[in-house]
């Protein structure tokens, strides 16, 4: 009997699980720090100030996301693709990047864009339907958003091959590339071919799959029997599953993977186990295909709240700090609104 049991499938794949035994987590949903002999060393520099900074990143990005969503509802944007719930995955991964690293996003990586210093104004052109890509991808080292599912994975593999051909890989100063795609994307031939190429050319490429449990209306069972990080096993490079709502774990695991890549041990696959808390896009209606229970369960694992809890509990931030960030977020939102309206 080769097939996993339905129970196994569901335990491995589904939203309401904790992501399984293999999940790397450094911060629990309650904001408690979990020791990790393997990954702690990748976040030794994350002191109070730096954690507050990650908190700020996530808060501003979420605020941007909510503002854009509202602007779409008011007819100021043609469409919006929310990242709500995926802030930790994107900020963790984005902040793990060094300036010379390159990133290839899909279309939901507003948090990574933020880390690459792409201005929200430049980013919004796509969603205002006034351009197809508003930033300078070469200067930002952040490729244009790619909408055709999977395409960017091959483009990223090629770029990473180029980093190696240029001799910029092999030691701690090496370069690496990161490529973002979703759970649904793993079914596309291009993603497979990206795995094949990167493996064969030892490309310094981190495949960063945000498993947000849904490809529009389709749950992950429509794409795979096994947890997605296990896909890497068949290609001969490591796959790892990280709690995608844990910014510290995402930062640590991505730094580890990028380091492996820059020193010549790429590629690597990271599955960030997270949840799309809003609709697929503003044109989507998730009530048609999922129960609100699921959302409620995930609200308890909110990526921002657990950092707030940790900061508070450990006296690393006081109320003033949180108010200050809230005010900054308000101003930020106002700026974006002014720009659009």
């Amino acid at each position, binding site marked *: 009997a080769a097939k996993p049991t339905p129970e196994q499938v569901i335990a491995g794949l589904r939203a309401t699980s904790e992501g399984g035994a293999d999940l790397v987590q450094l911060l629990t949903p309650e904001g408690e720090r979990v020791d990790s002999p393997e990954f702690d060393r990748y976040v030794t520099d994350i002191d109070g100030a730096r954690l507050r900074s990650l908190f700020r990143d996530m808060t501003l990005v979420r605020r941007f996301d909510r503002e854009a969503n509202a602007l779409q509802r008011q007819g100021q944007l043609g469409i919006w693709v929310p990242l709500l719930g995926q802030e930790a995955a994107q900020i963790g991964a984005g902040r793990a990047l060094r300036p010379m690293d390159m990133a290839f996003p899909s279309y939901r990586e507003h948090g990574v864009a933020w880390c690459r210093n792409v201005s929200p104004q430049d980013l919004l052109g796509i969603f205002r339907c006034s*351009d197809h890509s508003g930033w300078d991808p070469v200067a930002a080292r952040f490729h244009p958003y790619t*909408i055709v*599912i999977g395409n960017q994975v091959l483009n990223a593999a090629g770029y990473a091959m180029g980093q190696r051909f240029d001799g910029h890989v092999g030691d701690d100063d090496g370069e690496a590339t990161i490529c973002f795609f979703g759970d*649904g*994307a793993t*079914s596309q*031939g291009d993603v497979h071919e990206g795995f094949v190429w990167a493996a064969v050319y030892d490309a310094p490429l981190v495949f960063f799959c945000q498993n947000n449990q849904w490809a529009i209306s*389709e749950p992950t069972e*429509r794409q795979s029997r096994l947890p997605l990080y296990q896909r890497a096993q068949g290609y001969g490079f490591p796959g790892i599953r990280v709690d995608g709502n844990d910014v510290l774990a995402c930062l640590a695991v991505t730094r580890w993977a990028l380091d492996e890549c820059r020193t010549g041990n790429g590629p690597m696959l990271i599955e960030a186990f997270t949840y799309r808390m809003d609709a697929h896009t503003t044109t989507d209606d998730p009530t048609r295909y999922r129960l609100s229970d699921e959302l409620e369960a995930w609200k308890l694992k909110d990526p921002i709240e657990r950092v707030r809890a940790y900061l508070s509990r450990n006296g690393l931030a006081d109320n003033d700090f949180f108010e200050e960030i809230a005010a900054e977020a308000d101003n930020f939102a106002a700026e974006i609104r002014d720009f659009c309206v």
Partner: protein
Amino acid sequence: APQLTIGKALNHALRAAMEADPKVLIMGEDVGKLGGVFRITDGLQKDFGEHRVLDTPLAESGIIGTAIGLAVRGFRPVCEIQFDGFVFPGFDQIVSQLAKLHFRSQGKVKVPIVVRIPFGGGIGAVEHHSESPESLFSHTAGLRLVSCSNPVDAYWMLQQAIRCDDPVLFFEPKKLYHTGSLKETVDPTASPDPLFASRVLRSGTAATLVTYGPSVRVCLDAAIAAAEEGTSLEVIDLRTLSPLDLEPVFESVRKTGRLIAVSEAPSESSLTSEIAARVQQECFYSLEAPVLRVTGFDTPYPPTKLEEYYLPDLDRVLHTVDRALTW
């Protein structure tokens, strides 16, 4: 008989086809509970089950490629491609297998598959969601292509396409799916026109407009506007894009002496090129002006803030009619 939009008519057609033949399957991304991003398959999974309405993995080559295997097994899959721009990952299976299996096997293998493709612009979408790739397929021998422009045709043509033993690419004018003003009474007891035939929608004498899909409305509106200024335009809806049924167009041009072909697709090496090429040959001595074309531009589809300048509209059509009349 109900009053239906094009979208609803397609939904009714799918239901009718599934009721009539248990071998009819629906496959695609989000076609199940969601009913497709345009709701064309709304309610079908609920009523026919998950084995007849398949939410497939996210890969278009996979959708077409497995549909072919299912067809070889005796099923009649109706595949939904979510948007025009996403047909390309499935292009190889369409061109190398779908179009060729019947020919390759000397007729022994049939692949009665319908690939539904919502196409064209005008919905204010982001990149890849507004393309008109039909000419790529009309250049590909071995495929049949049709496009509907109104609810009655939508209802009948889709059912006829599903009954056809050849592969049919079915191009749906997505911007008209839910246009209430286009609602028509669809009588399921009526007898439909043949699938692979053009239709003269409006007769006229000064010039002929030939088009298909979303541009049919534009041309009809142009004809109405022209009539107000005393110019009588004939309007032909191609309906079948491959094989083309150009006899009615030839006949019309022999009468009017002038033809304007209208399409949202870029003009280069396109269906409108083909129409011009064929008409100038068949109606050479009847042409008072060259065949003119009103099309999208030969650029990638622009950001949709600009699409009104890209898509053929009433003004461009009428302006081109004027050019033809004063050539």
